């Protein structure tokens, strides 16, 4: 990868230290994921230049924003970035339109007014342009903040837990817009989050941070499929499978297709051919040596054991499986593992009790 994002930051503040060296793809959404205090927000602020990490380095492709070894440092207002903060950060003295135009006016002289309308349309806030921020709901405010950031013609979009301050319903209101951005934006997005659901739903590249260190960095599927990681996801361990809606069947089930087989779920509204992300929790996968036809579990795929690892849950093991190239995790009891003789290379059948659909 030639055009990638490189960030090297070291911050030492006594009780908190950050020491990371990141390489992120220059396309798609990358998540900085970890518990609070893991340094993800500090990382993001260092990228934006809001936090000065001495001796640091940050570049998007050939555009260097910080290289202390060569004395390069661009202050935040000289960096072509868009940033959305955790809480609503709209300027209360400006209307929605005024907020959106704030960055646009300062970036593009004689800015195209159609662009503002276009972005407003994209984020579903076209009807709110003349309102003042206090008259907006939390979800609307965050959408305006995203629109405002996009209008500043950024080369990178930094999102600092943009959904954290919202209740579940507001989150559901914004997620589809973020997904739309994912499809329409050509710039990279760095998404800070501590919510496994958001990450599984939106992200392409996943960086796990813990205690100010980078624990893992890779494609979402690779990182989620690893079983050697400390219990970052704890009970949420599981993988994401990219499927396509294949068929709506007469008994109100929809068949999803992926390279490793089929998964049936309750009838979906999406048209045939629509891509759908599914999240399969390790705790919802059980293993059988022979296909179970006499059981109620419908979804069963052929799999091969890759390896096993201990889990945070006592008495359980995590089994990594390969389903025609797709990783799958199963959490079973150690006793079952021993009884079935689970070992690397063993071919068996994975039963999937439930599937979380992410879109």
């Amino acid at each position, binding site marked *: 990868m030639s055009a990638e994002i490189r960030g090297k930051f070291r911050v030492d503040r006594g009780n908190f230290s950050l020491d990371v060296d990141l390489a992120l793809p220059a396309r798609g959404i990358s998540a900085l994921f970890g518990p609070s205090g893991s340094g993800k927000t500090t990382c993001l602020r260092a990228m934006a230049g809001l936090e000065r990490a001495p001796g640091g380095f940050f570049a998007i492709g050939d555009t260097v924003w910080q290289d202390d070894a060569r004395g390069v440092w661009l202050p935040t*207002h000289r960096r072509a970035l868009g940033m959305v903060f955790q809480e609503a950060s709209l300027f209360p003295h400006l209307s929605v339109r005024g907020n959106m135009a704030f960055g646009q006016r*300062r970036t593009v002289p004689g800015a195209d007014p159609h662009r503002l309308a276009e972005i407003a349309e994209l984020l579903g806030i076209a009807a709110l342009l003349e309102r003042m921020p206090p008259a907006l709901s939390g979800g609307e405010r965050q959408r305006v903040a995203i629109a405002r950031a996009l209008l500043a013609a950024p080369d990178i979009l930094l999102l600092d837990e943009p959904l954290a301050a919202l209740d579940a319903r507001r989150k559901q209101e914004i997620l589809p817009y973020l997904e739309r951005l994912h499809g329409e934006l050509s710039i990279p997005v760095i998404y800070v989050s501590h919510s496994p659901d958001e990450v599984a739903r939106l992200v392409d590249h996943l960086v796990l941070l813990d205690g100010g260190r980078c624990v893992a960095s890779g494609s979402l599927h690779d990182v989620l499929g690893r079983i050697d990681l400390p219990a970052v996801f704890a009970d949420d361990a599981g993988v994401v499978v990219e499927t396509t809606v294949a068929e709506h069947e007469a008994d109100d089930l929809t068949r999803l297709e992926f390279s490793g087989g089929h998964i049936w779920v309750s009838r979906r509204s999406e048209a045939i051919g629509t891509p759908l992300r599914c999240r399969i929790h390790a705790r919802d996968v059980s293993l059988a040596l022979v296909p179970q036809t006499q059981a109620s579990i419908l979804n069963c795929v052929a799999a091969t054991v890759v390896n096993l690892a201990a889990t945070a849950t006592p008495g359980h093991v995590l089994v990594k499986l390969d389903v025609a190239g797709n990783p799958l995790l199963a959490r079973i009891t150690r006793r079952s593992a021993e009884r079935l003789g689970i070992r690397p290379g063993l071919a068996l059948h994975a039963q999937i009790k439930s599937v979380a659909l992410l879109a």
Partner: protein
Amino acid sequence: MESSDLAAVWLTLKLATVVTLLLLLVGTPVAWWLAHTRSRLKGVVGALVALPLVLPPTVIGFYLLVAMGPDGPVGRLTEALGIGLLPFTFPGLVIASVFYSLPFVVQPIQNAFATVGERPLEVAATLRAGPWDAFWSVAVPLARPGFVSGAILGFAHTIGEFGVVLMIGGNIPNKTRVVSVQIYDHVEALEYAQAHWLAGGMLLFSFVVLLALYTFNAGWRNPA
């Protein structure tokens, strides 16, 4: 009302206006610094700015008189510059009043800047606004209640000053004789009727100013 009363009223308003404008000019950077600095000097500067709140005006007036007098550092400077000595002149009164009313302007603005906080400025920076741009387009509009309070308090406080004026400006008609001094003169001369007019006027003025201030602040906090 006598013409000397009117002259005193006019002079007082002129003094308060000039002082308020100067204080907004001088006090804003001081307030900004106090609201944002992490320097150890913050406490010292904050205490210096607040001194007029507790010092007797005669003390401030005394030191300013000494400093601006022929043997004081400021006096020597102004004489060397060909301006002459400042005590017993209108400019001298203005300078003394700026010191005297400083905390009344700096503190509300400082509190307003502190309430605005760093976040809006960070947001402005991520939207390509440089520090100067962000100050005018974000910090000042958001700190507006502080500016209004500071200006009103500074203006009203300057109108009401007495001790400092007496020390530094004396009692020169049309030049340094402000309303509070004029009232004092009337009372000394047992002209209670004239004193009543001016004193009553001051009372009414002060009340209206404070009423306006509190109404404005309440309205700002509950925009609905």
